[in-house]
């Protein structure tokens, strides 16, 4: 399956309009260049070989960890992506953890006090969180906390003069918080229904009739079963998380892979766009694999084959 996807990505980016060479040179240099020299440049970039050959060359390179060179700067793509990756991982993992914990807690509370004012409030905010685009939320947060109150810095990540790792944490708060809040809404809605589902099961009644304390019934017996579909959902939302980082990174000028991707889509730097898209697919497939393992851990009924 990864093979098919890699082929499709390569095919798609081959068809991208715009000559790659023209993005490498400043316009005035391009005016003066001779056709023969242009050919030479194209040759050195491997742009003149037949399509299938180029594909297999590329694939072979990828397996060995050679992702090719960025057409815009001539720097290895691996270096560029590795340079940006920590920022994105930091952002998405903190958002993922925060939203999973908050979502499960809110969803459980909302299910336990079903029909109360708390429940209605949570449900309404959950709906709001699903409906408001993340970047609008991000913009509003930016205006309030960074521009007007000046509590948090506007965008960027690492500024000169930061020496310890924790120095840039104030920069992380807003993007991660916004992203987490948007994701929390979905997780919460799902946890609520999953929790309600499991609380209606027979084993809950059995536990109650045995005289198990109420909190144990809810959290040990109920929540454990309810968690299984929630974990699956969080795994399914992983692509959304990547999509979210693309836009949030743009809003906060967070120098991550998403920002890199958008910039290079604009300038049609295809080796880079291709690699980022490919890596994102691999990340998604990896996540779904991990989720499978995790479900098996949580649910003794599921057996790994």
């Amino acid at each position, binding site marked *: 399956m990864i093979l098919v996807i890699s082929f499709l990505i390569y095919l798609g980016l081959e068809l991208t309009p715009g000559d790659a060479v023209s993005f490498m040179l400043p316009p005035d240099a391009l005016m003066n260049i001779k056709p023969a020299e242009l050919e030479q440049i194209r040759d050195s970039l491997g742009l003149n070989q037949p399509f299938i050959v180029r594909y297999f060359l590329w694939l072979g390179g990828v397996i060995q960890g050679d992702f090719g060179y960025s057409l815009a700067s001539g720097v290895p793509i691996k270096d560029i992506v590795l340079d940006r990756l920590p920022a994105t991982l930091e952002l998405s993992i903190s958002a993922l953890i925060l939203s999973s914990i908050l979502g499960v807690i809110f969803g459980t509370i909302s299910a336990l006090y079903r029909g109360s004012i708390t429940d209605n409030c949570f449900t309404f905010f959950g709906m709001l969180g699903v409906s408001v*685009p993340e970047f609008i939320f991000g913009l509003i947060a930016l205006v309030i906390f960074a521009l007007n109150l000046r509590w948090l810095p*506007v965008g960027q990540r690492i500024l000169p003069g930061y020496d310890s790792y924790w120095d840039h944490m104030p920069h992380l708060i807003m993007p991660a918080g916004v992203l987490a809040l948007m994701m929390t809404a979905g997780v919460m809605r799902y946890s609520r229904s999953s929790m309600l589902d499991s609380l209606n099961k027979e084993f809950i009644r059995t536990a109650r009739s045995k005289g198990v304390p109420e909190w144990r019934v809810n959290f040990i017996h109920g929540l454990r079963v309810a968690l299984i579909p929630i974990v699956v959902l969080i795994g399914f939302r992983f692509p959304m998380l990547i999509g979210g980082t693309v836009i949030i990174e743009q809003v906060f000028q967070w120098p991550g892979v998403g920002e890199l991707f958008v910039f290079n889509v604009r300038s049609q730097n295809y080796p880079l766009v291709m690699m980022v898209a490919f890596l*994102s697919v691999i990340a998604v497939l990896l996540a779904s694999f991990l989720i499978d393992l995790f479900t098996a851990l949580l649910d003794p009924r599921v057996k790994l084959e």
Partner: protein
Amino acid sequence: MTEEKRPKNRLNKRFDKLRDREIHGYNPNDSGGRAFKKLKSNRLAVIGLIFVILTISASIFAPFVTQYDPQKVDLRSMLKPPSSDHILGTDKIGRDVFARIIYGGRISILVGLGSALGAALIGVSIGAYTGYRGGWWDSIFLRISEIVMSFPQIILVLLLVSILGQSLMNLIIIFTLTGWGSLYRMTRAQMLSLREEEYVQALRAFGLSRTMICYKHILPNALGPIMVNITLSTAMFILQEAGLSFLGLGVPLNIPTWGNILNVAQDLRILQNYWWVWLPSGITISFFVLAVNFVGDGLRDSTDPTLQG
């Protein structure tokens, strides 16, 4: 007369009577009516529906709602705050923000609804047929949908935007191509369970063709969840259009859409000092999507037979 005349017995007469009644709109167990009643009793769904209808009609009849042209540049009134003249003020080059939101609704809703219907057309027609038929056609399309869905959607959309270029039509096509997966999956799952029903066996015994059985007889029974999914997809596509246009990679910037209005908010000066340029559009998107989601949820509650009570 070429048509063979049926013997006039009691059963046939009764059948004719029943059919006559149905033709004239009388149906004793009309589930549509009940679903509609349930929808009406859901307050949030009704509010949502009213809001959606109001917004859509405001944008369709935009010339009657506002006298300003959304494209007209007026350099004498740049970045004017809201006043009685311009209800929501003017933007960087003096265009009336309210007019732009009203006219922008046309495009944003068109993109959302058009893509959702396109995705439904592809997803449902393929899902219904291959889901009913099974076999290797089914596995091929299942694989294709897996491939499409393993991409994070926005990455795939951006990829296709860079390949096909930015235009309104392209955007709808791209959303359709990237968004049919979930509708296909859902239709297929419905078909897999419905095809085991007894009436399907009966139809097969009558010798009806495959297409006839799956499109005419099974599909209507799966329509409820499909409608819900189309509604929710519309909301999702509107959000995606806004996101893309915010990045400047959606609908070309000269066409006003809700997302394109927000594009200027990337400028921190405008973001901080001229809230009326971007905030109203953001609120409009949020409320419209919220309303559509309420309608979708209401539809699900009213058409889902497991919740019928």
